[in-house]
């Protein structure tokens, strides 16, 4: 149910940005997610399509499409100072085998852009 909370929040943000930018009808909203953000984008789209049809959101967002892009997750190795793709290798550094590794990025959840009238 986490995804519904996120949809609710994105809608709130977009409605605020719409006021600031004098938008009347939103065509699409593009989100960016880190590979290990834990979000299931297909659920987001499903909840989005249902949520934006609600009376209080429909005028601005009723026909809008939610799009998403994925940002790669990168892990940093403290031992050999290397970087590697998290999803492929997990916690263990593929160069030196060390477990002293930290996620550099990959947990992002961003609103990238809004296309609107």
């Amino acid at each position, binding site marked *: *149910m*986490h995804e*519904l*909370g*996120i949809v*609710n*929040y*994105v809608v709130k*943000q977009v409605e*605020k*940005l719409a006021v600031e*930018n004098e*938008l009347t009808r939103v*065509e699409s909203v593009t*989100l960016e997610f880190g590979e290990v953000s*834990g979000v299931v984008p297909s659920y987001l789209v499903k909840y989005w399509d249902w949520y934006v049809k609600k009376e209080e959101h429909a005028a601005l967002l009723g026909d809008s499409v939610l799009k998403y892009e994925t940002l790669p997750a990168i892990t940093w190795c403290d031992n050999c100072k290397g970087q590697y793709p998290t999803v492929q290798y997990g916690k263990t550094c593929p160069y030196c085998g060390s477990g002293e590794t930290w996620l550099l990025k990959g*947990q*992002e*959840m*961003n*609103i*990238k*852009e*809004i*296309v*609107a*009238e």
Partner: protein
Amino acid sequence: MDKYKVIEVKESIFADNDKDADKLRAQLKEQGTFLLNLMSSPGSGKTTTLKAVLERIKDKINVGVMEADIDSDVDAAAIQDIGVRSIQLHTGGMCHLDADMTRQGINEFGTDDLDMVVLENVGNLVCPAEFDTGAVKNAMILSVPEGHDKPLKYPLVFTVCDILIINKIDVMPYFDFDMAKVEEYAHMRNPDLKIFPISAKTGEGVDALCDWLLEQVAEWKK
């Protein structure tokens, strides 16, 4: 195509919430109220732990509780039973609280005279961790029956917390819960995390937790 405008946002979904949270913390600092955000899975013992803690500190400081865990009023009533002020926040089935909802709760509750407010967050380890509520410190409860591998399954909540309360240690003999492992896994995520093993039921370990809280409150009011 030119009837469409493209607004480049490039901002975290949570950017606005983070600003609201900082604003709320500033307000709390001003009024001298320490806010603790308490998170856990459903049934880990948030309400029971709160009751055990509040019984011990309610005569030392002015304290109140905001219940956000599902609109049932049961938890708020349980807290009122021990003579502590509480309100039930109506989250409308949301899976987490954000800073704006927390601020509304704080203002509606009337917290000017309170030294400490505890927010019992919605029982869920995923999104409460992503939304800064504006709390001064964050705590999570992990109970023994949930197992010692939770820090591996829900890493984020362990990184945002200041303390980890391990509850229900009275039932340790019946589970293969490995205290050393949980400490190791949790510290992998967050080396600064303070760990308090307690039993809200028998009271074991609760005094140490109370001491930590009273210290934090005193620190915040400086």
